[in-house]
Every structure is written in structure tokens, then in C-alpha cells.
């Protein structure tokens, strides 16, 4: 009996913590998201994301931004990961540490990195001023800036994921393709990439949901450009529109949880 009690003690604290401070609040949030006028139940908050012009624009911006960043990240990270996985060179360890370091940076700092690069007194304008006499590339606070900021934290993470899989990839599959007549490029595109497709897709799914729910980065950079997370914050703090804000939070939450599950299923099938 005593043993059972002690065993329970191992798990009880976290269960209580989660119940009180995770499940309960999330449940409350979900409830509020269905709240309408005078406590009625409605889907209106969710549909307003599409029907309300401003909300829809933010949704559109979020989706469009996430898709383009995810695609660009996939291509760039794929190339880099392949290159790193197939070559040995001095200082490779150092290089890999360097290039994956940004993963540990909070979103706001990434925003600042973009300001450093593309702000009015940024590095790129400084360089172009020295070469061309005029400062180009001061787009930190525009959508281009946000795009690059999202790239900044998506690329290192995706490189890490893809690199791990490429390194474990059975080289003999590639060799088999070569012996029946495929050159290097054909072997990569017809055999390696299709075989690694689940990894690419799950890495993309994870990158997509990180991009959709990124807040600090855009908040640091966005002035007039609205995306769902920022809209949610605005509705909450400025307009006290708790129901709509909750609906948006739940919406993004569900999207992310689903994508996470997709990613996990794909990887487990390997």
C-alpha cells in the first residue's frame, strides 16, 4: 500500500499542475471562444476570422507568409543539409554549432537581428552606401523584413532535422541507383529525396506551425502588417475582445497540434 502511494507521488504533482494550470485554462479558453452575446453559444467568433475583412486579411497574411517561408526554408535548408552531410572539412563541428545557434534565440532577438541587418542604420544599407553611395535594403519593418526574420529562425532548425536524416541515409541506395545508370543529380532527385520525403514533409509541417504562431518576432518588427498572433494580442489588450482572441488562439492551437501529429506519424513510419 505504501509502495502504491509513493508511486503515485511520482506522478501526482505534475498531474495536478497540468490539470490546474494547463487543462483548466485551455478548457476555459475554448469555452470563451464559443461565447457570444449574453453568454450564448456560437461559432461566430471563428467564422468572423473569415467574414471580418480585417481578420481575414490577417489570416491571409499569416498563411501566405508561413507558406512562402516554409518553402524557402525547405529549399535552402535542404541544400545546406545535403552539402554538410556529404562533405568533411576542417572546422565542420564549429560551423555546425554556428549555424544552428540561432535556434536558441528568442523571437524578439531574431527581430532585432533583422533590424541590425536591414534597419535604417543596418549593416546592409551601410555596405551598399559604401559601394553604391546609397543605402538599399532598409526593409526591416516591412513584410520583407518579417519574411527574412522568419527565415532566420526556421533555417537552422530545419537544417538540423534534415541533416540528421541525410547522415543516416543508406548510401548504398544511392550507389545502387548509380550502378544502373543514374548520375549524381539523378540519384539524388529520383532516389534520395523521395526516400527522405517524409522527413521533408514533417520538417515543413513543424516549420509551418512555428511560423503561424510566431509572435515576438513579428511584434518587434510589424507596424502596419498584421498577422493572426498580433491581431489576437491586439483584440485582447486593446479591445478586450476576449471571445475573438480566444477563438484565434484556439484556431492556431488546433492547427499546430494537428500538424505536429502529422509530422510525428510521418516520422514514425520510417
Amino acid at each position, binding site marked *: 500500500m505504501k509502495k502504491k502511494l509513493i508511486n503515485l507521488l511520482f506522478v501526482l504533482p505534475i498531474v495536478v499542475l497540468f490539470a490546474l494550470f494547463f487543462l483548466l485554462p485551455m478548457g476555459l479558453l475554448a469555452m470563451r471562444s464559443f461565447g457570444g452575446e449574453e453568454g450564448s453559444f456560437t461559432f461566430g467568433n471563428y467564422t468572423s476570422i473569415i467574414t471580418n475583412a480585417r481578420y481575414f486579411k490577417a489570416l491571409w497574411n499569416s498563411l501566405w507568409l508561413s507558406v512562402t517561408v516554409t518553402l524557402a526554408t525547405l529549399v535552402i535548408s535542404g541544400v545546406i543539409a545535403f552539402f554538410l552531410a556529404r562533405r568533411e572539412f576542417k572546422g565542420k563541428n564549429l560551423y555546425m554549432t554556428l549555424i544552428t545557434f540561432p535556434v536558441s534565440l528568442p523571437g524578439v532577438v531574431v527581430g532585432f537581428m533583422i533590424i541590425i541587418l536591414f534597419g535604417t542604420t543596418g549593416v546592409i544599407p551601410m555596405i551598399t552606401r559604401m559601394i553604391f553611395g546609397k543605402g538599399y535594403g532598409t526593409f526591416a519593418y516591412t513584410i520583407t523584413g518579417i519574411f527574412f526574420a522568419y527565415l532566420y529562425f526556421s533555417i537552422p532548425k530545419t537544417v538540423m532535422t534534415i541533416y540528421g536524416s541525410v547522415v543516416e541515409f543508406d548510401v548504398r541506395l544511392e550507389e545502387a*541507383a548509380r550502378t544502373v545508370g543514374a548520375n549524381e543529380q*539523378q540519384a539524388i532527385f529520383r*532516389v534520395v529525396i523521395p526516400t527522405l520525403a517524409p522527413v521533408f514533409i514533417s520538417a515543413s509541417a513543424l516549420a509551418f506551425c512555428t511560423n503561424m504562431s510566431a509572435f515576438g518576432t513579428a511584434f518587434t518588427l510589424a507596424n502596419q502588417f498584421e498577422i493572426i498572433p498580433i491581431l489576437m494580442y491586439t483584440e485582447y489588450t486593446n479591445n478586450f475582445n476576449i471571445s475573438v482572441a480566444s477563438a484565434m488562439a484556439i484556431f492556431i492551437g488546433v492547427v499546430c497540434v494537428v500538424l505536429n501529429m502529422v509530422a510525428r506519424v510521418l516520422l514514425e513510419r520510417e
Partner: protein
Amino acid sequence: MQDQVEVRIEHINKVYPDGTNALKDINLVVNRGEIVVLLGPSGCGKSTLLRTIGGLEKKTSGDIYFNETEISSTPVEKRNVGFVFQNYALFPTMTVRQNIGFGLKLRHMEKSQVAAKVESLIKMMNLEPYADKKPSQLSGGQQQRVAIARVLAIEPKVLLLDEPLTALDAKLKEHLRIELAQMLRRLGITAIYVTHDQMEAMALADRIAVMHNGVIEQVDTPQAIYSAPATEFVAQFIGQINKMKGVAVQQDGQLMIDAGFTRLPYTGGREIKAGQEVTVFLRPEDMTLSDAADGVPATVEQNVFMGGYYHIGAKIADQTVYFQAPNTRRFEPGDSIRIRIDNEKLIVI
């Protein structure tokens, strides 16, 4: 039958960047339509040699000829070799059909032609029930057939097989060994086959090249390798053998080998001086229990009952030999017995 190819390997050396010398001055000729087996323990360089011939590894020096063309600078995808991997390396995202047709699609063949060729290979390898399955759904033996079909599709000049049977269980191995041998002979393509399994080598090879530490110790027919090994390593690597010491002596103007229990004239071509120590090898099957007077006297040291026979260790004139005795008679250590030795079968190295 397509044009058969002769493979000539001349003075091939391969040294790895860290200094290991994997292949040391390899010379080998594989005749048109011949099956040569590279046999040796792990690490002897047989797979490295095979991969170098196939273009998956780069040689450090030397030449490789397919007929009259030197191909060691040709990229692997242009060499048209059929390489069968130990783990088959089937493309996991493609069906059997697509795996087999892969090489043909790369050659921009007409779709209908590809389909026809793939179909004929599927029939030939008895893969009809699995044609649209993925490799993960196939057994080891089935995967192996697909791997072979895949290389046959491109009508290779040379077949290179890297331990294709090693991954299978014993019973399947026995069965496929024979099938593979028949198929290779029927196809008539020049083939180089790598294995560490002697039985495979004996069953499949027209000639065996025994390799050890990056060097080819002997190239010969299986029978010659077995009964006339050229080096100590080959003698001891193949089958069971007894190793004894002998000494060269001059007798009546002739060079004889004294093995303690017998003397025989030396017929080998080596430069041996009188008084030089030599090794004398004898296979267990060339020793039989005998009561006749021409048997050599020996004392039983150990005997182990193995069911169908006794495994006997006996001492003959200071040397210990092992052989098999029928299970009809019981032995005790210390027993005196007589063994008949066929002097013709003694191997002197």
C-alpha cells in the same frame, strides 16, 4: 546472348587516405562468360576490389579493362555493370516493377518497351505475385530476386555480386546457391562474385581467387584450390586440414620431404634446400582408420562422438592430426590405432 566481356585487372592498388593499403598489386583476368569468386575472410579486400571494378571506389593506381577499354576513369553510371548489393538496396518508395524499370527509364526508353522488358524479367525471376508490392513487403529471398532482376534489366557487361546470399538464413542460402549458380551459367554474363562462404564459392565458381590482406593468394579452379593450395593461408582457409612439420632431406640424390611418419619425394617447383623446414598439409578425408600393416601407427589422444562419426585426434610420430572415424567402433584415449595415409594427397608448402 550479348557480347561477352573479358575483365582484366592489372596492378591495381588502393590506399586509403589514412594509409591503410587495402589492395596490393592485384592482377586478375576474368574470361568471357566466366564466374570468378573472390573468397576470403572479412577485411581481406574482396569487397573493396569489387567496388573498385564497379566504380564505387577509386583506385590509387593500376588499370581495369573491359575488353580493350580501360575504364577506371569512367564514372560508375557509365560503366554498365550490374551491381548486386549485400542488403539488396532496393528503392523503398518504388514497387518491384518500378525498381526493375528504373535503369531503363534513365535510358529514355519508350514506356511500352520498358514495360515489356520489366514484365519478361518479372516472369523470369518468378516475381509475378509481387510485381506491385514495395520492398518492405517482401521476404529476403524475394528482395534478392528483385535486386537481380533490376541489374539484368540494364543488360550489364559484367555482373558484380557483393555477398548476395549472406543476409539470408541457412536453408534459403542452400537453395538459392544452386539456383543462382544455374542462372548465372544460363545467362553467360561475365560475373565476379564476392563471398566469405567457401561452400558458396565452390558451388558457384569457375575459378576462385582467394584473397588475404589485400593480396590474391591463389587463383584456380575450386578443385585445384582444394587439393593443391599454393600457400599456407589457402590451405588452412579452405575446408579442414591438418598441419604438420616436415624437413627436407637429400636421399639418393633426390630431394625428399621427411614428415616423421613417412618420406616422399618433393615434386613441387620451389627452391628448397636440404635441412629446410617445410609445412606438410593433409586433409582429414585422406586419412582412414586401418588395421592393415601399411597403416601408420598412432595413439588416440581424444575422441568426440559427433553422431554420424567420431572426431578423432591422434598422435603420429610426435605430431597431432585430426580425422573422422566411423561410429561403429569405440575408442579410448591411449588406444593404439593404425591410420592409412594416402601419400599422394600430402601437400607440401
